């Protein structure tokens, strides 16, 4: 349980901090590293970083757009053919971050199993 929580929290914090200095894919490095260093179970190795970054990105996206009355997100949701649905745009944003994190976490975990013979 603590592992779950610490993987979740550390991923979230590191992704957030590194985003100030590095491009978007820094989250893949973070999830890879936490996947390696804080190994989780078979499904959780994908799911926890997925949840962590999805939540972070959705919260960030919501905070930024609600502060500006969703003027641009409404237009982007039209542009990306989401029928102008802001919530869908925020959800997809989260999904993109989560998917990248989840797969990187899995890769990190699998790397560990390659190198750390049990």
């Amino acid at each position, binding site marked *: 349980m603590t592992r779950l929580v610490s993987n979740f929290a550390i991923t979230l914090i590191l992704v957030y901090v590194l985003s*100030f200095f590095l491009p978007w894919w820094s989250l893949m490095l973070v999830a890879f590293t936490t996947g390696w260093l804080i190994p989780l179970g078979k499904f959780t190795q994908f799911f926890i970083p997925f949840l962590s970054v999805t939540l972070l990105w959705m919260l960030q996206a919501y905070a*930024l757009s609600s502060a500006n009355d969703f003027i*641009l997100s409404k237009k982007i949701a039209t542009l990306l053919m989401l029928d102008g649905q802001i919530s869908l*745009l925020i959800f997809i944003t989260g999904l*993109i971050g989560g998917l990248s994190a989840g797969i990187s976490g899995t890769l990190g975990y699998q790397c560990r199993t390659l190198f750390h013979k049990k």
Partner: protein
Amino acid sequence: MKYIKFTITLVITLTIFYSLNNKLGSLPPLGKFLNPSHGVWQNELTESQNNRNVSLQYLSDKVIVKYDDNLIPHIFANNDLDLYRAQGFVTAQHRLWQMEFQTHAAAGRLSEIIGEPALSYDRSERRRGMVYGAEQQLKSWENDTVNLAFIDAYTDGINQYIHGLTSQNYPVEYKLLDYAPEKWSRKKTALLMMYMTKMLAGGDSDLEYTNFLKKYGKERFDLLYPDFFDINDPVIPKETDWSNFLNVEQTSAPNTKTVLDYTKETISKPHPDNGSNNWAISPNKSYSGNAILANDPHLGLNLPSIWFAIQLSSPNQNTYGVSLPGSPGVVIGFNEKIAWGMTNATRDVIDWYKIKFEDSTQSRYQYDNDFKMATKRIEKIAIRDKKTFIDTVTYTHHGPVTYDSNFKGNSDKIGYAMGWTGHLGGQNLRTLLELNTSQNYEDYKNAIKHYVAPAQNVIFASNEGDIALWIQGKFPNKWEGQGKFLLDGSNPKHDWQGYIPQHHNAHTKNPNRGFVSSANQHPVDSTYPYYVFNDGYETYRNRVINDFFRSKDTFNIQDFKNLHNNNFNLQASELLPIMIPVIEESNLLSDEKDILSKIKSWKYNNDINEVGPTIWQTWFDKLTEITWDEISQDTIALEYPFKYQTIYMMKEYPNDKFMDIMATPEIETAHDLFIKSFKYTVTIMKDIENNNGNLNWGDRKATYVGHLLQGLPAFSKFNIPIGGYSGIVNATSQNHGPSWRMIVEMSSPPKALGIYPGGQSGNPGSKYYDNLISDWASGNYLELNFMKDQKDDADIIFSQILNPQND
């Protein structure tokens, strides 16, 4: 097993990374684009106090920028170099993507951003010599070190802004198309000048006219495309006395034959409605005794708007108006002493020369019974995700050979070269910058002298009570008929023999009638001692405007507003009374009777709730189409006669042979065409009513302001409730119209109103992106806050201080 699993996961990871980090088709790179820290969420921002103070290099003193409640910056600097550096910085802060995109468009570089679909566009821009023209401008600027320093300061201001950007702060369009801004340069400003020159003086019909002449002969041509219409209310009043134009010599016509070639396809032309209105009244015609001036340039309706409103203040000037993002100074505006505005002079400044090359290498061409060397210009057009396209353009002394076997031509030994005043260089920016600081008529007259192209009707009013209008540009002094048709590039007599001396450009100062005005109509009447041919002159807006100013003794600001928003359809009022009696009511079905009664009750106003304009426009468009079927159905490039002449033909020559519809066995007259097009109109009206539920003009016209990037719907504004149409003083058609409306009363200090269909911010995420559109559509204006000095804080919502950087 572990290894297989690992490999699979690795492949999936890399695939996800790649597909989220790169553009897929028209989709932006979604990882880059949607991540909250660098992507589009960072553009979800309305400009506010958060635009913190900044330090700029090379400033000699602090510059204060005050933003009013429409995000119009009022810049206060202690010298002009600081002022223009700040203008560059501030403009880039709000309009960077647009500035760069427009100059990329001018330079024929859109393929770099958009990819191969833009290649044909890019080639035609290169082949019409846009980059060459910009380079000629740069050369002319080098002789004018004072203004060059201002241009360089402005350039540097833009670059300091770009330098301070990180990718997360890029305007949203860069993120969408996944590219980055490049450094600004003098040359980009010159390219912007070319962008405007092409927009306003980049059209001609010489090759279409040549086709017509070859096919139908001179008599038919002169009837359908006359040098003067049977009515003329020119820019320069008819009563103007030209007798003080001493030693005027119109070039004498050589006795040469017209070159008769057929051309199938010509290069694209600017929007035919690119034009404008301006007018000014003298103190004795003004309600207050102050001269009053108004201007509204009609251009494509785009977002971000072509204009950026700004106040520029230094010890040398206090100027307010609209600027073109990418160019220093104010283009249309006023200061404490004068106001000025522009409409397009619409003169024929493009001529085409037939070039006969010695052989297919195109290295020499026939000229004056000899051969002359041509030069080559290699145009490298970078294409996104593709190999660079290389186009070789041959240059003659006339200009670039736009058409040859490589491009829209068919022979490798024959080409058509373009002679264009847009290739002459010139110091247009000097004119604009000097207008900014002009104090009176003499200053204005001196400022405009340097201006070459696109020729403008430059209107003027001062607080001393002077009003004036100069038609300013560099005009070839042509022989009678020169440049109407394709010219012979081998005959020296077909070269432009010289230019009309600047002081002989048509002008008027304080005319007796008490007002000056222009609306792209004929500049002069036939007594002007130089040759001017009818290059598509407006015949409706000018008459409504001039008749209005002849209608009473004095005018006030409300009169000016009413005139800007005047929807009277003079065209319809001159033809409908002839069309309607032709329709015999007794033979009509009930639907037809209904439409006829609706159009009968119309008072010729193109207001949004009227159905008359919807019926009229469909009727007239169909009528035009079936009248000129000889033209539209031909395989060679031809052009319809002007609207005025179309109506003239229907009234004066109803039995002309062109009235016949070629596809039908019987011989039609204009009256038959009125009936046929009426019946067609009734069916269309039924369709519209079934689909939209009404025939209202506003819904039918459906005016929109489209984003510069191919009208991206998400960033555009649709169904704007505004009346008017092309040819009406309120010249708002579907995607074209008054791009800036300004009224300035030359009191001390001046009182000014202005509005444009857009907003100050170029960011689609800002509430200032399109906030002015609804007021513009309703005919409202902003009261322009002409600040006397920086202490004047009314309507100011925040300030930005640009500090000199100490290092």
